[in-house]
């Protein structure tokens, strides 16, 4: 445990099979235990691609990734056990109820029996889904789906939690509730890697952020550091706009 870094990335590159430009272009950084690390960047910057590699969806074209000291190339199977993923796109079975979805995904992470049941109930309660929990997910509003999607990733109390835009389309009230609970999850020992387009939320939520664009890291530091480093910026959004000042993305 002497190594404070739980994720170490060196020269990570990913070029998709039919793409000309790499989606992730030789990035290196590390994430320490118990951080809430923000991966910020405009559309198509390479955030989801980076997260996908880190959680083993597909291998990188080149580069090295160590998670909890283990190489993702060789020890992916044991790494998967400590990961939790909240994907950007809702990944739930629409014809199953929230409870059934959570029971299935919880089981896939090795939970079962009463402890699985209890955890599901606790989280449904926390995110205000108890009343709707026996309805098919297809009948949910967008924000409700997001919340179930979130629970499915954190039910098993992972050591590392990837959150890919977890609060998109969620109303202000629920957003605050979610962020509050995520802070609790973090306080109980989970390292969080988080992406968002919501700079204000990132500024308050993240302990450290990295702004990336076109697969490269532009800057990195605590939100406060980034703001002070960029003359004339009063918040993270200013910094972000200054650094990624470009037209609409594809």
């Amino acid at each position, binding site marked *: 445990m002497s190594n404070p870094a739980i994720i170490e990335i060196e020269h990570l590159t990913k070029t998709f099979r039919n793409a000309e430009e790499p989606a992730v272009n030789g990035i290196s950084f590390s994430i320490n235990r118990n951080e809430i690390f923000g991966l910020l960047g405009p559309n198509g910057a390479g955030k989801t691609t980076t997260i996908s590699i880190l959680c083993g969806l597909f291998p990188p074209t080149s580069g090295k990734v160590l998670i909890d000291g283990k190489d993702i190339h060789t020890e992916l199977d044991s790494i998967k056990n400590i990961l939790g993923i909240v994907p950007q796109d809702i990944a739930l079975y629409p*014809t199953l109820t929230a409870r*059934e979805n959570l029971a299935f995904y919880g*089981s*896939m992470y*090795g939970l079962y029996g009463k402890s699985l049941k209890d955890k599901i109930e606790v989280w449904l309660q926390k995110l205000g889904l108890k009343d709707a929990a026996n309805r*098919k997910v297809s009948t949910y509003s967008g924000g409700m789906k997001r919340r179930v999607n979130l629970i499915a990733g954190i039910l098993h109390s992972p050591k590392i939690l990837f959150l890919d835009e977890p609060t998109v389309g969620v109303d202000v009230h629920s957003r605050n509730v979610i962020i509050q609970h995520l802070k609790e999850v973090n306080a109980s020992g989970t390292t969080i890697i988080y992406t968002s387009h919501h700079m204000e939320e990132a500024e308050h939520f993240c302990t450290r952020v990295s702004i990336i664009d076109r697969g490269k890291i532009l800057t990195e530091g605590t939100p406060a550091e980034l703001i002070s480093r960029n003359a004339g910026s009063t918040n993270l959004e200013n910094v972000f706009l200054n650094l990624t000042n470009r037209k609409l993305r594809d």
Partner: protein
Amino acid sequence: MLHKLLATVKKEILLLLRDRVGLAVLFVMPVALILVMTLIQDSAFKSINEKGIPVVFVNNDHDSLGNIIEDGLRRNELVYVSDSIDGKPATAESATKAVSEGKFLLGIVIPKGATAAIRKNVAVLVNETMNGADTTNKQQDSVEVSIIVDPVAKKSFLTTITSNLREFISEVKTKIMFETFSEQIAEVIPDKQNAPKNSYQKSQIIHYKEIYASTATDKIVPNAVQHNVPAWAIFAMFFIAIPLSNSILKEKSEGSVFRLHTMPTPFLLLVNGKVIVYVFVCLIQFALMLCVGKFLLPQLGLPALVLGNSMMGILLLTLATAFAATGFGVTVGTLATTDHQAAIMGSLSILLLSALGGIWVPSYVMPEVMRNISAWSPLNWSLEGFYKLFLRGGNVSDILMESFKLVLFFLGTMAISYIYNLKKRRV
């Protein structure tokens, strides 16, 4: 691991139960198919029966052989026997002409003195046997019954007719043999003349027939029920490829695969959860189809399905078919990229494989070339197996080959899916 597998199975069952259309495809469609196809084919069968396949019969013998054959043909529901052509008594020449003109599908000519020839030869044989003479170098009687065939006549029909003829000839031979023997015996032991003769003769003839029948059944053409029930049950089992591939593709489009691929659960386990559920569905389907054949069809005035006598055989073959069908579905779901594609790809390939496999039109009425191709369809392996069980009284050992091929097919499709999946994920 077991918890995970159970959770996967539970999830699949729930997904299936919530998919009303899928369920309808799985259970309602095959029942409807069996009913419709059997009723259609049964009536087609009956319309042939009413008129019958036209056969011209020329009886120049006018003795036992000719009469027995004529009798037998007239009793055969499949054929309509005529002994005259355009109002004139048929002769060998006019019959040949009429068949070549397509007026009849078949002509049968019994030569003059056929029975007499048999009788004479038998008499010589019996005499020599009774007197202990050496008969090995004696020429056997040969009775030449001519069959004139219209080239369009189906091979299966021909084999049935020729085997019938052979049976009649043997029957006549046996009968004459016994008559002659009895006369001889009566001469030797006159007081035992009456009592045992007839019963002995009868039992011997029946015995002889039975032996013949067991080889003849090999060529027995199944009736509409015996063909359609297993055929459409197999078809229905393979049709689970549609809902199964759909379920695989939905996971792709609904984003679940993202989670599924990043979970600490082997993807194979997830697929196996599906396989277990769908194999079970296949078994239920098949049981349902058998019930339809056994109980529902008779209510509609059709013959009831005869299951043969090997329950173990049925179970084994059904299980093997179920695995093959499931493997097929997994492959379709893996190769297709959208559920639309899977539905088209799945249904077309099943239609093709079933047509080739003899589901729609039994392969024994197919031309030689097609029959050879047919042997490559897994649906055909299964159907052949069920013919063996249902029609020929086969047991487990008779369908081992079919089951083995089906299981091999399952393993093959799973391997293809697995490899393709690995490749596809290398984006």
